[in-house]
């Protein structure tokens, strides 16, 4: 294995660790907006992880999947934000505890 393969493997591991940290924040976050922020970050890191993995295994065809997932992540974050905002406006969701 060459040096650049080792470096790409380190980048893979760093991105995976970041995804784990985002999941921890999604579990911990006292407000619902913390969790939405963490989910957005998780999606972005997934896109990067797919890209790095494609280059690590020398198959850059994975970038198609990354492109599609980048779009889906954005749309889903906006959709769940509207839902959370709607429920919080109804007063049913205590924002600081949910």
């Amino acid at each position, binding site marked *: 294995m*060459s*040096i*650049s*393969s080792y*470096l*790409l493997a*380190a*980048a*893979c591991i*760093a*991105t995976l*660790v*970041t*995804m784990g*940290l*985002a999941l*921890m*924040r999604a579990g*911990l976050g006292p*407000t619902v*907006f*913390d969790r*939405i*922020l*963490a989910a*957005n*970050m998780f999606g*972005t*890191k997934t*896109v*990067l992880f797919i*890209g*790095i993995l494609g*280059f690590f295994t*020398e198959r*850059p065809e994975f*970038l*198609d999947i*990354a*492109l599609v997932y*980048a*779009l889906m992540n*954005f749309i889903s*974050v*906006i959709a769940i*934000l509207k839902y*959370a*905002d*709607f429920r*919080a*406006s*109804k*007063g*049913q969701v*205590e*924002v*600081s*505890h949910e």
Partner: protein
Amino acid sequence: MSSLALVGAVITLLGALICLVGGIGLLKLPDFFARTHAGGVTDTLGAGLTLLGMIVLAVAFDGPLDYRILVVIKLVSIAVLILVTSPIAGHAVARAALEQGVGMDSIPLEMLQKTRFAQDIPRIQLNGDADAQKAQCAGCLDSLNKYAQLTSREQQNISYLRPPFTESQAQAFEAEHQAILDARHRFATRDFLPAGLDADAVMLKIVIEDMNAQLAQEVSS
């Protein structure tokens, strides 16, 4: 591998490490809005650098030229997408949280009274204690129950009165509540038409007028 591939791998690793810093900041920062900063800033910078490193790697890749150009085009489009949508999503989250009054308990009281969250100060002071909030004013429990039974459309219509947490809000809500019940009754009994008209006849007339207009349009064309 060539040195260009090494440079690309180093840039990619740098981008991934910046993303890691952002993830650590997401965990350790104390306030919600600070976390949006950690998430948003390091997300765009880390993603940009990572994708730039991958572009350099793709250029250093040994393969046919058009294949490499395709890979570079895909990477550029992913980069543009992430750099455009990630700040938008972060802004939307922060703005929604501001509208809901997140993190208002770390702002001094006299500053808060000058903003539009002044009416939420009782709720913010009791932040986190739902029972204390609800029991804060005597007449509030009834108003809260009535508020919870309104439909979402009606709640949005009186959204200037949040779920009533203070005496004044409860009194204002009672006045509005009777008006809402009257409106519901009038809609159910089809009382919204001018006197003397029949609802079904009015709707039938509208349908017939629509059909005549469509027929005239078809005849003339």
